[in-house]
C-alpha cells in the first residue's frame, strides 16, 4: 500500500535570535497509510502540535519534505497552496472556545470552506451546512446561533463539521478532546470514529491521554523533545513498550482500577522534559533515562525496525534506542 501522507526528515526550528533556536520538530519521518488512524503522544513541549501544523503548512518547514498522495508539498505555503490543499487536508483544534470566531454564526463558520467552491449557490451552501450539522449531532436550526451559545462538546462538534464539510482525505486532530468532560469525550470520540469509518478518513490524532489514543488509533507514535522515539501498532506500543521513555509514559498513566493501582511501583522517572532550545547531543532522553549508557549522551540513536509480534505485516515496529542496536 502506498502511504497517503509521507513525512521525510521533517525539521522545524523557531529562531529566538542570537544563536538560540527552538528545536520543535527535529528530523521526523513517518508514513501514514490511507484510512489509518495514527495516534501521536508525548508530553507538552515535545513538538506534537508543531508537527501537525507543519504538515498542513501552517508553519513553514525548516527542512525535509511532506508529500500527500505522492505529491511533494511546498516548503512554504502561499495563498494558492492553501486553497489547493484545504479541500484535502484539514485540522480540528484543541480548544473549542478559542478556535471558533465569536463574531460569526455557526452557519458561517461551518460553511466558510465552501467558498472554495464558487459554483455552489447560496441555497446549496445552506443545505450542506444543515446536512453537516445533523451529521455531527446538532440541529440545522443552530445555524443562526453564535459559538457562545454552545457547550464545549457542542463547539467541538461545530469544529468537526467545519473541518469535514469539504470532505478532506486527511485530518489532523490536535487534542480534540482534552478540554472536554469525560462523558463528553466519549461522545466526541465515538462521533469521530463513526465519521472516520463512513467517510474513509485518515487521521493523525494528537493527544496526551494515552488510554484514549490506544482506544482510537491503529498505530501509535511516541514523540519526545522533537523526535520520534517509538512507532508501532497501538496494542504493541501500549502493552509492550520498548523504548525506556515509552515505558515510563505508560507506567505513569493512571488506570481506573484500584487493585491495579495498589500494585503499582512508585514513579521511576524524576525530572522534567528539558528545554527544546539548544538540545543536547546524543539521545535526548539520556539525562532522564534509567538505563542510560555512556555512549547515549554522545551518539544519537536512529529510528530502526525491531521484530514485531503483530500479524499486520504492513506495520513496522520502530524504536530509537541504543538498547536495541
Amino acid at each position: 500500500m502506498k502511504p497517503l501522507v509521507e513525512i521525510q526528515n521533517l525539521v522545524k526550528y523557531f529562531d529566538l535570535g542570537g544563536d538560540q533556536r527552538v528545536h520543535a520538530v527535529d528530523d521526523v519521518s513517518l508514513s501514514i497509510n490511507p484510512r489509518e488512524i495514527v495516534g501521536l503522544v508525548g508530553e507538552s513541549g515535545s513538538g506534537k502540535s508543531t508537527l501537525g501544523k507543519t504538515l498542513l503548512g501552517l508553519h513553514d518547514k525548516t527542512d525535509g519534505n511532506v508529500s500527500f498522495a505522492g505529491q511533494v508539498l511546498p516548503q512554504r505555503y502561499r495563498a494558492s497552496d492553501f486553497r489547493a490543499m484545504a479541500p484535502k487536508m484539514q485540522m480540528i483544534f484543541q480548544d473549542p472556545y478559542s478556535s471558533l470566531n465569536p463574531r460569526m454564526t455557526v452557519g458561517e463558520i461551518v460553511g466558510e470552506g465552501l467558498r472554495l467552491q464558487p459554483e455552489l449557490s447560496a441555497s446549496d451552501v445552506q443545505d450542506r451546512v444543515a446536512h453537516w450539522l445533523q451529521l455531527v449531532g446538532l440541529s440545522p436550526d443552530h445555524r443562526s446561533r453564535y459559538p457562545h451559545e454552545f457547550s464545549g462538546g457542542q463547539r467541538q462538534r461545530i469544529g468537526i463539521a467545519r473541518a469535514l464539510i469539504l470532505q478532506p482525505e486527511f485530518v489532523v486532530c490536535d487534542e480534540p478532546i482534552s478540554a472536554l468532560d469525560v462523558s463528553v469525550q466519549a461522545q466526541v470520540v465515538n462521533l469521530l470514529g463513526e465519521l472516520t469509518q463512513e467517510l474513509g478518513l485518515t487521521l493523525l490524532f494528537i493527544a496526551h491521554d494515552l488510554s484514549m489514543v490506544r482506544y482510537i488509533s491503529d498505530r501509535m507514535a511516541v514523540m519526545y523533545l522533537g523526535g520520534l522515539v517509538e512507532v508501532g501498532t497501538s496494542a504493541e506500543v501500549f502493552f509492550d513498550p520498548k523504548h525506556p521513555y515509552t515505558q515510563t509514559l505508560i507506567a505513569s498513566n493512571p488506570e481506573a482500577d484500584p487493585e491495579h493501582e495498589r500494585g503499582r511501583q512508585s514513579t521511576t522517572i524524576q525530572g522534567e522534559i528539558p528545554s527544546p532550545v539548544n538540545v543536547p547531543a546524543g539521545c535526548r532522553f539520556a539525562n532522564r533515562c534509567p538505563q542510560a549508557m555512556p555512549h547515549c549522551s554522545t551518539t544519537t540513536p536512529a529510528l530502526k525496525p525491531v521484530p514485531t509480534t503483530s500479524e499486520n505485516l504492513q506495520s513496522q515496529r520502530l524504536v530509537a534506542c541504543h538498547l536495541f542496536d
Partner: protein
Amino acid sequence: MSEPILQVANLHVDFQTYGGVVQAVRGVSFDVCAGQTLAIVGESGCGKSVTVQSLMGLIPMPPGRIHQGSAHLRGHDILASKIIDGQDIRGSQISMIFQDPMTSLNPTMNIGSQIAETLEVHKGYSKSDAFARAIELLDMSKIPEAAKRAKQYPFEFSGGMLQRAMIAMAIACEPAILVADEPTTALDVTIQAQILDLLGDLQQETGMAIILITHDLGVVARMADEVMVMYAGEVVERGGVDDIFYRSGHPYTQGLRLAMPTNNQDTEANQTLVAIDGSPPDLFNPPRGCAYHPRCPYAMQVCAEQAPPTRTLGADHQAQCWLHHEMAGALPDGLVSASKVGQ
C-alpha cells in the same frame, strides 16, 4: 476507622443571579477522617468545587448563600466562624491547592517569600526564620536546589515545579486537611505521577486528610480511600474506592466508568466506549425526581416524579437510586444490589 475530623451535613449553597437562583449544592453530607483521602468525582458544574469552597469561605456572598446545613471541624462550627482559638482555620487547619498553579501564585513575589508569608501570619515566625523554613518545605516537596529556587519568581518555574511550590505552601502550617482541587489536570502524565506520589508521601508523613477533587477516575483509583460521586449538586453514590469501582450501585457511576477506555489486553477487542448522552441539567431549575433521570438508560416513571431514597448497599456504601427499590425488578447488568453485597 478513626474519628472524623470534618463533618459536613446537609449543605445547601445557592447563587442569586439576574436569571434566577442557581442551586449549586443541594444537600451534601460527608465525613473526612485523619490520614484518609476522600475523592469527589463528577462532571464539570456538578458542585464539586463549590462544596469545598463554601467550607473554606471562598464563596463570595452575595451572590452566594449557604442557606442550610452545617460543617464542623473537630467540633467547631466553621460555617459560622472561620476563627478557632484566635486563628483563621484557613491555612492553619485546612489549606487548598488549585488546578492552575500559574495563576494562583503572586507573580511579583519570589516563591520563598510567598511561603514564608503564610508562616509569618499564622505561626508568628520572624522573617528570616520563615524564609529558612520555606526552603525546608520546598525541599520536602522535592524541589531540587531549594535554597536557590526559593529566591526565584513563579515565571521561572515549570508547571510541575509550581504545583510542588503550591503544595509546600499548603503544608507550611501542618494543616489537618488538604483540599486539592484538580491538582494535576493541567499537568502531563509523568509529572502527574510525581505529584500524586508526593501527595501520598506527605500524607504518610503528616497524617493529614486529603479531599481530592477530580474527574479522572484513574487518579481516583490511585489516590482515594473513600469516593463521593456528585451529580447536579447532590451526592448520588458514596463508598470505599473498591465499592465504587467494583460494586457500583448507581447508573451515573457506571456511566462515568464506561465512558473511559480500560486498558485490559484480554477484553480490549470487544470494548466500545459508552457515552452518557446529553449534558448535566440546568441548576436554575433542576429536574423533579432524580436529577439524573433525563440521561439515565434505566429511568422509570417513578424517577421523574420522586427523589430516590438513599439505599445502603454495604458497610459505608450508599447510593441514591430507585433501581434498588423492592418494586424495581431485576437490576441492569453491572449494578450491584443491596442483597448481593457480602455474598
